């Protein structure tokens, strides 16, 4: 232990500038990121990707930059501390000093724990406090997020630093890996050109996580124990090959019947799906990629979802059978997250098909078989709250903030954004009443005893059925915009075109859903004719009819 602390203190003394910069960036991130919550009305998309990081004007851009800078400071810090006792080469002073490799590795780990993991953990906790959450209630999620950061960012950087001799060489290797990943992605897109979106499953998530953990961990331990760099690259290369194989072969496809069991005989399907033969809904096929592939949209209608339930369509698989017995089957591919409530609603699914396959079946009636991977979810108790002027907590969902109206009316709200801790909130259906008139001048209206019957209903889905304690992110606070329908335009008669508004005190009703099982549902469409190819420049107009 004495040697571990000795090396740790040496590194801490030496790298205090790098440590300070890293902490300063993290502190700036904690200070600036919450400002983006105030600007959420500028976000146009639901929580995801680029818009989540860079949305929200100047503050959003700054916060987004800091989200990128945090791992960059880790990159520098990790490289500096690992290369201080670099393992590649034969002229380092420490090779002939009484360093014990286990203690050296432990000293580096303690350094990262003290100056990377602990500040990150504290930063995440402080962000939770700032967002209105008690971090002690989210310890599993905080630790899970820390583990994700360790495995997806820190561990690869430590492994690559251990296998390189300097920061420039590390940077070159990272650039090489980025090129490799781009190559694998291109190969994956080429090999799976008849798939629009891959399904997620154990191989895509947990197995890959374990592969990274074991492969990179082995490379680090091997390098520290033996300093045989060429041999130590083997686990790293094996990890890359294995991950590439998992990405290319997509073994989760084979597990879909296990993840979503086939419906048992005599048990009613959670919903009915029928082909929507109405001619107005017949979109053509589109040809991206110089018409090597075609995207075909099938209009459908769902019904018979039981009261108190919702059904989420996670993925589907299309099979085409020709009259001569020839057959084509698509891979399982993710849908654009379809969620169905009791009632009957039209919806579309789109799948990609190779031009050659299309040409083969286009002129004959085929049997179209579509298998859906479904997750029925039971509704919890509906909670109705009057929309206040400031932040309000929605139990089990998060802390929500009404956003100001476009035209500066202090009594009116244009949308609601909500913050959740460490992950997207549970799957939730929210409704609100839009007003088509000006909001009353008085304060918040009392909550009505009966549901309001006037105004336009706005409905929104938010969240996910996943129940992981955390989704990996540099920030611990996820922001979800409630994309209420019927928000954008008020077609009321008059000289001006104005948006609908939510008045203070207007009731907001949220209902959470929890997955109860997973299953499949089938749809057969006999005598189906593949749609004709759209002329160049044609486009489809989809109309929300909820």
């Amino acid at each position, binding site marked *: 232990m004495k040697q571990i602390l000795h090396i740790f203190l040496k590194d801490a003394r030496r790298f205090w500038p790098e440590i300070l910069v890293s902490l300063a960036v993290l502190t700036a991130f904690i200070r600036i990121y919450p400002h983006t919550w105030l600007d959420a009305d500028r976000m146009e998309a639901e929580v995801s990707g680029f818009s989540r990081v860079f949305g929200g004007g100047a503050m959003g851009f700054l916060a987004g930059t800091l989200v990128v800078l945090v791992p960059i400071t880790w990159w520098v810090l990790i490289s500096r501390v690992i290369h201080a006792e670099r393992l590649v080469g034969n002229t380092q*002073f420490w090779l002939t000093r009484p360093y014990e490799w286990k203690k050296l590795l432990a000293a580096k780990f303690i350094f990262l724990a003290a100056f990377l993991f602990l500040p990150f953990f504290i930063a995440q906790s402080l962000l939770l406090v700032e967002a209105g959450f008690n971090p002690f209630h989210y310890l599993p999620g905080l630790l899970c997020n820390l583990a994700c950061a360790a495995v997806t960012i820190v561990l690869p950087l430590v492994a690559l630093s251990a296998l390189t001799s300097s920061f420039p060489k590390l940077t070159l290797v990272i650039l090489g890996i980025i090129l490799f990943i781009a190559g694998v992605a291109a190969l994956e897109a080429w090999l799976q050109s008849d798939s629009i979106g891959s399904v997620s499953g154990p191989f895509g998530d947990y197995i890959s996580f374990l592969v990274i953990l074991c492969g990179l961990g082995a490379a680090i331990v091997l390098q520290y124990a033996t300093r045989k760099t060429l041999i130590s690259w083997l686990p790293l290369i094996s990890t890359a090959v294995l991950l590439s194989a998992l990405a290319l072969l997509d073994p989760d496809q084979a597990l879909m019947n296990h993840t979503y069991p086939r419906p048992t005989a005599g048990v009613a399907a959670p919903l009915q799906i029928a082909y929507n033969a109405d001619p107005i809904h017949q979109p053509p096929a589109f040809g991206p990629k110089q018409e090597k592939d075609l995207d075909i949209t099938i209009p459908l209608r769902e019904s018979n979802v039981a009261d108190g339930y919702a059904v989420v369509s996670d993925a589907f698989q299309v099979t085409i059978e020709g009259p001569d017995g020839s057959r084509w089957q698509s891979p399982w591919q993710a849908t654009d997250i379809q969620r169905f409530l009791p009632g009957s609603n039209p919806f579309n699914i789109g799948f990609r098909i190779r031009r050659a396959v299309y040409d083969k079946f286009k002129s004959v009636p085929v049997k179209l078989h579509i298998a859906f991977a479904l997750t029925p979810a039971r509704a919890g108790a509906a909670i109705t709250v009057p929309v206040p002027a400031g932040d309000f907590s929605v139990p089990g969902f998060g802390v929500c903030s009404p956003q100001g109206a476009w035209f500066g009316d202090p009594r009116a709200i244009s949308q609601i954004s909500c913050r959740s801790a460490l992950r997207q909130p549970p799957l939730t259906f929210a409704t609100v009443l839009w007003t088509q008139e000006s909001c009353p001048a008085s304060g918040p209206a009392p909550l009505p005893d009966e549901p309001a019957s006037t105004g336009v209903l706005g409905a929104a889905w938010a969240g996910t059925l996943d129940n992981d304690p955390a989704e990996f992110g540099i920030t611990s606070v996820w922001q979800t915009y409630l994309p209420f329908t019927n928000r954008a335009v008020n077609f009321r008669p008059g000289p001006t075109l104005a948006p609908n508004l939510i008045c203070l005190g207007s009731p907001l009703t949220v209902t959470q859903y929890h997955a109860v099982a997973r299953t499949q549902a089938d749809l057969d469409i006999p005598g189906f004719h593949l749609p004709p190819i759209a002329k160049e420049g044609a486009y489809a107009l989809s109309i929300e009819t909820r």
Partner: protein
Amino acid sequence: MNSAILTENLTRRFGKTIAVDSINLAVPEGTIYALVGANGAGKTTLIKTLMNIFSPSAGRAQVLGACSLRLSGRAFTRIGYVSENQEMPDWMTVRAMLDYFRGFYPTWDRDLEAQLVRQFDLPLKRKLKHLSRGMKMKAAFASSLAYRPSLIVLDEPFSGLDPLVRDELIEGLIERAPETTIFLSSHDLAEIESFSSHVGYLEQGRLLFSEEMAVLTERFREVTITLRAPAPLPANLPAAWLQPQTVDCVLRFVHSSYNGEPSEAELRAVFPTATDIRLDAMPLRSIFLAIAKSGRNHAPSAPGQTPRGNEA
């Protein structure tokens, strides 16, 4: 006498290049062993293999009784290693470096450290990266001697140093000599001749000989034979007679197996018409030059010793 370093057919290859070729070496405890050889002879590779910086491609080595492959961690509390091309923690001051290294060695002698600092006139507050080459080497020496190692391994320690610094370092080494084994490499014979007790000669990865310095200088003689009349060089001269050449009536060669009266008798028997036979002791430099120039394919050896891989 126990060996501080013992190798058995030790070989190290880099691809197709054999840097160290089947070396059998024994360095007795308490000796100052100088490994000499030209640049590229394999000295540094041999030392790094002994220090477990490189793994042997074949054969094995023992250092202080332990297999060289197990040489790590605590084993280095008994070994001091200084190399001309060793990277030091340049960002540290001399004091910080000594403070840092002190924490690794249970036997670190603070009095000896202070003495070495005084002896080498080390500027404690200056960073290593701001020190001259000589001063940096002195700092490395101080940090490798202060814990009284049982074995000090020095790879070209005096290379490129001015004579004053070199003498200071040698003086520091000689003071430690009674309590330790010193194994050093050098391509400069003059700098090791004065204080080494044993010497080994490495050429193209092979150990041509390895023996006590006194024995080596004793068995080499420069032989000058004056003949009555000019004569061609006799055929089938003994292999131990190196670089034979004749000029008029004078025949000269280096006798690498001289053993006193029997050798002189042999000379008289081979050259019965010689009017004069003179045998001169040779300085170490001349001995090595003779070896280096004598075909480089056979190893001159003392009677009873194998041509190469000798034990001292």
